[in-house]
């Protein structure tokens, strides 16, 4: 049996020790080994970050600790989970209930749905208090807890319902609930993924502060290197159901050892990589319903050799670190196969810059754009007020360039995009495309022009019609714009488009659900390209994707711009992407643009206080072998 990090956690202050945990799911297609032999330990007052991309099994690991794996499909098949000197997997459901919430509390990802909408927050926190003596004391304690997580006017908030609180506030309530019983272990499952970056900074700060006060051990589950850099003491990288690397934070950021960890760093977009392709992790996570003969990362690894195919890599343990890779086994072998130095790659690429073309007349010019939504009240539903979703927004995007529209959720950036595309008719202001005022055209007049400006949306799952084959999806635009007369020509063009975005021509006859998120996003891009547009509005095209997949899509967008001279309006909240891709930046806050200018200038010398706050909130990652702190957005994807 593999030892994992057991030796490390032998001391008395070990709060949690997980040994060889295996959780399998029974599906019609076979048994999925979602968690396949995971071992780790956490000490008192320590934060262990379980880092991994979507589907790697990190959330299932958390649910397994709590024995809340969805039944009957999922089951824990092996392993031990020692909480103090108690193996909780051996407990009955009744006894386990006393562990959950009391000794092992949890914060989930979605504060919107994780609180019961019809019960007051006070009551929900109260439920988590162990052994309440009397009503008064309980109420006092809950209010204390609310205050301790930084909720203002806590006594009044006791009777508030979740919908009356903002997302950040809800997450604070979740934290208060989790800490109510002063647990030994706090499991935070992507606690800030659903939050804006400035809110994220506050929540992370709060978590750290509370941990310092209470000495709780924290198991932090995240996909975000930025959050890891900010929070973790120890880092465990998970891939395909297993931990592939374990190290202290300092060691991990200084020298990530597993090829997968290295790739994760290299695929992060940032300023230094402008103008060059990002490193991508080719392929996809292997299916987990198979028996592995070799390394699970084999297909995607640049260093893979025969041994990786034939032999499952062992867990190699060193002082305070471990890795699961043949490169380090035996250690002597390592020098020969030293992975390429990251420093070289970054340094050589860092100098590459695109020449800035002459500032020409904007292909797209937005003047004083306003999108108001009426607020109706009273007996006759008179319009008493407007929600000013977009207010007096002006900018222009020169042909062949990229303008990034940056802002947090609710800032109105997506509404600007829809207003430009005339999917929402603006209340006032003008949208000039190549000198033509789109806002003044009727839907009929607009239709032939639409081929020139296209859109790519955020959610790869809702942006493709699940009932249409990919070929039909691609041909729809050509048909609507009457581009190619006959079916055969259209079909041929669809195949070309697929080739252009790196998909096989056979994809035409398949349905969207057969593709991964990244592939779907490529199909979305191909659909937009089908009508040969000049401008593409990219509305958060990568924010639902994992970092490694994001890199593929960003590379593709960059290449297409070079080849086809496309103009991008890039709507995003991810500053790393902005740095990598944008020529100019406009920062939106509450419906208005508070600052705009050249990307370099805005990001390095922000003038407006909001821009400054935004930049400050982004977790800093020290890239391996490069000691200058680089702001890299923390919100690259979702688990």
């Amino acid at each position: 049996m593999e030892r994992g990090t057991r030796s490390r956690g032998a001391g008395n202050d070990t709060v949690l020790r997980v040994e060889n945990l295996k959780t399998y799911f029974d599906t019609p297609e076979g048994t999925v080994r979602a968690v396949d032999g995971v071992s780790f330990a956490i000490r008192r007052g320590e934060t262990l970050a379980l880092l991994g991309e979507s589907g790697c099994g990190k959330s299932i690991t958390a649910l397994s600790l709590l024995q809340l794996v969805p039944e009957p499909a999922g089951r824990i098949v092996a392993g031990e989970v020692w909480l103090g000197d108690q193996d909780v997997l051996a407990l009955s459901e009744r006894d386990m209930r006393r562990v959950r919430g009391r000794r092992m509390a949890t914060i989930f990802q979605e504060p919107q749905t994780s609180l019961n909408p019809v019960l007051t927050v006070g009551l929900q926190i109260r439920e988590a208090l162990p052994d309440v003596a009397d009503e008064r004391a309980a109420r006092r304690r809950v209010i204390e807890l609310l205050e301790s997580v930084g909720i203002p006017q806590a006594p009044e908030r006791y009777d508030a319902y979740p919908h009356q609180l903002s997302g950040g506030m809800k997450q604070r309530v979740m934290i208060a609930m989790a800490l109510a019983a002063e647990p030994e272990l706090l499991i935070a499952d992507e606690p800030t993924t659903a939050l804006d970056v400035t809110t994220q900074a506050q929540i992370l700060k709060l978590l750290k502060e509370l941990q310092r006060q209470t000495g709780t051990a924290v198991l932090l589950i995240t996909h975000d290197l930025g959050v890891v850099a900010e929070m973790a003491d120890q880092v465990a990288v998970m891939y395909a159901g297993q931990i592939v690397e374990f190290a202290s934070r300092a060691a991990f950021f200084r020298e990530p050892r597993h090829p997968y960890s290295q790739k994760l760093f290299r695929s992060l977009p940032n300023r230094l990589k402008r103008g060059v392709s990002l490193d991508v992790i080719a392929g996809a996570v292997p299916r987990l319903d198979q028996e592995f003969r070799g390394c699970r990362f084999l297909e995607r690894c640049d260093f893979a050799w025969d041994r990786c195919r034939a032999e499952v890599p062992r867990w190699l343990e060193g002082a305070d670190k471990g890795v699961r890779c043949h490169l380090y086994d035996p250690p002597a072998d390592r020098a020969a196969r030293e992975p390429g130095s990251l420093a070289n790659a970054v340094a050589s690429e860092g100098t590459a810059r695109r020449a800035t073309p002459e500032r020409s007349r904007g292909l797209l010019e937005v003047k004083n754009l306003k999108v108001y939504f009426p607020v109706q009240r009273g007996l006759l539903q008179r319009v008493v007020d407007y929600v000013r979703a977009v207010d007096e927004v002006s900018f222009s995007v020169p042909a062949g360039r990229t303008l990034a529209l940056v802002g947090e959720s609710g800032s109105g950036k997506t509404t600007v995009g829809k207003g430009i595309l005339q999917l929402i008719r603006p209340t006032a202001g003008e949208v000039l495309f190549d000198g033509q005022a789109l806002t003044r055209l009727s839907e009929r007049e607009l239709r032939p022009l639409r081929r020139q400006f296209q859109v790519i949306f955020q959610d790869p799952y809702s942006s493709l019609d699940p009932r249409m084959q990919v070929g039909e999806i691609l041909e729809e635009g050509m048909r609507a714009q009457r581009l190619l007369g006959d079916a055969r020509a259209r079909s041929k063009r669809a195949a070309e488009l697929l080739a252009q975005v790196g998909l096989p021509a056979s994809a035409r006859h398949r349905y969207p659900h057969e593709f991964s998120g990244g592939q779907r996003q490529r199909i979305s891009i191909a659909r937009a390209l089908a009508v040969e547009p000049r401008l593409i509005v990219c509305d958060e095209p990568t924010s639902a994707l994992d970092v490694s997949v994001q890199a593929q899509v960003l590379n593709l967008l960059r290449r297409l711009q070079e080849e086809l001279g496309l103009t991008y309006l890039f709507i995003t909240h991810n500053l790393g992407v902005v740095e990598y891709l944008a020529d100019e930046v406009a920062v939106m806050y509450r419906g208005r643009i508070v600052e705009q200018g050249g990307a370099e200038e805005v990001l390095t010398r922000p003038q407006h206080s909001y821009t400054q706050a935004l930049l400050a909130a982004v977790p800093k990652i020290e890239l391996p072998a490069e000691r200058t702190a680089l702001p890299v957005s923390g919100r690259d994807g979702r688990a």
Partner: protein
Amino acid sequence: MPIQFVFLWTDALIYVLLAVVSVFVVYAVRHEHLRAPWSQVARRPLAMGALVVLLAYVAIGLLDSVHYRERLAKQDQYAAEVKSLLDTLLQPLRTRTERTYSAPFAIHAFTSETVDKPDGTRERAYPRLKYGGAHLATADERAGDIGRRTARALGTAVLVWLLALGVFVYWRRLPGDDYRAAVMRFIRGGERIPWRTIWATTGVLLLVLSCGVYLSPYYHVLGTDQVGIDVLYKSLKSVRTGLVIGTLTTLVMLPFALVFGVAAGYFRGWIDDVIQYTYTTLSSIPGVLLIAAAILSLQVYMATHPESFDNVVVRADTRLLFLCAILGVTSWTSLCRLLRGETLKLRELDYIGAARALGVTSARIMTRHLFPNVMHVVLITVVLDFSGLVLAEAVLSYVGVGVDPSMESWGNMINGARLEMAREPMVWWTLAAAFVFMFGLVLAANLFADAVRDAFDPRLRR
């Protein structure tokens, strides 16, 4: 031509429905997003058993939907009477009517009559039935006769079943399988499609059918009703009525619900207001009352325009169709509301936004994107509504606003029999027959609908 086909309105619509279903089947086979949930339905033993039963009902209904007139022997004319294929098949049942009530398998009448004895005296007695058990000399032979005929029926059924099953197993055997292995594989089960259940259900149905074939020519298996008509015949004739109500109602209302619901959700604005107003108004009238009002109007219209409804069958058919239409009007609204809600959700999805950005027209967005994506709602509603409609027919007929009183339907059977409840001993067989036939259809439909809903409702997929 010895016969002249008669196309009733409901017949025509049934054929349309058949065509629609066939087209849908072909479409579903070609489209993976429909094929997958259907194959999930096909894997459920209970659902497939129910389907076999449903198909049996449908077969009876279809036989009863081919209408014609026979040529009269002498004149160069066709008979006024419109018959269906089923009528012809059930000719003996149809024509062998007694004077009044008789119990199942009875050979004597249920009520005593005054009979003239050969010696001139009169006395009250239970006379022998004209047809039921007429081949028997004395009442004592009855039990033995029934036993013998039943045994023969069972024997035949088992034989036919085994033969068909043998052919089936042979036809499906894997290459390299010998026959014995194929049989063992069938018995073990565990195949994707629950063939064992299907064959077991078929077997039971065969037994019932065979018993009917062997016994009903000699006895009134389910007794006779007040005017002496064989209850088995009535029950079988009622199948079509139930099926028509359950399916045509949907066929009538579906286009409206689909187009209006989707249009209201997609266009919003004044179109939405008008459609919402329409369905709120319609649904605010309690269904039974609206149907009552409409049927009463129809009755008056028919009574004052007798020239348009010369034929009993035509009149009953028109009323049936009208009933379907008015039931459709009342059930239209709930589906329309569902579809509007679903469309409101869909229209915010990015693929609709992308289609609009590509300049795709609204009509095309509705037909290419919205209709296929709300189809599961339509399908679930259709299958779930079916059994409710069959049950509604009985209630409406009972209230007096259902199908024409001259039409055979379970509702009319119950309605007629209910008046005899106070009789001692009770006339129970009409009720029992209506109960069994209705329950069989509705239960099968419910079980099948359950499986369809489980397979198609995205919320139930966990």
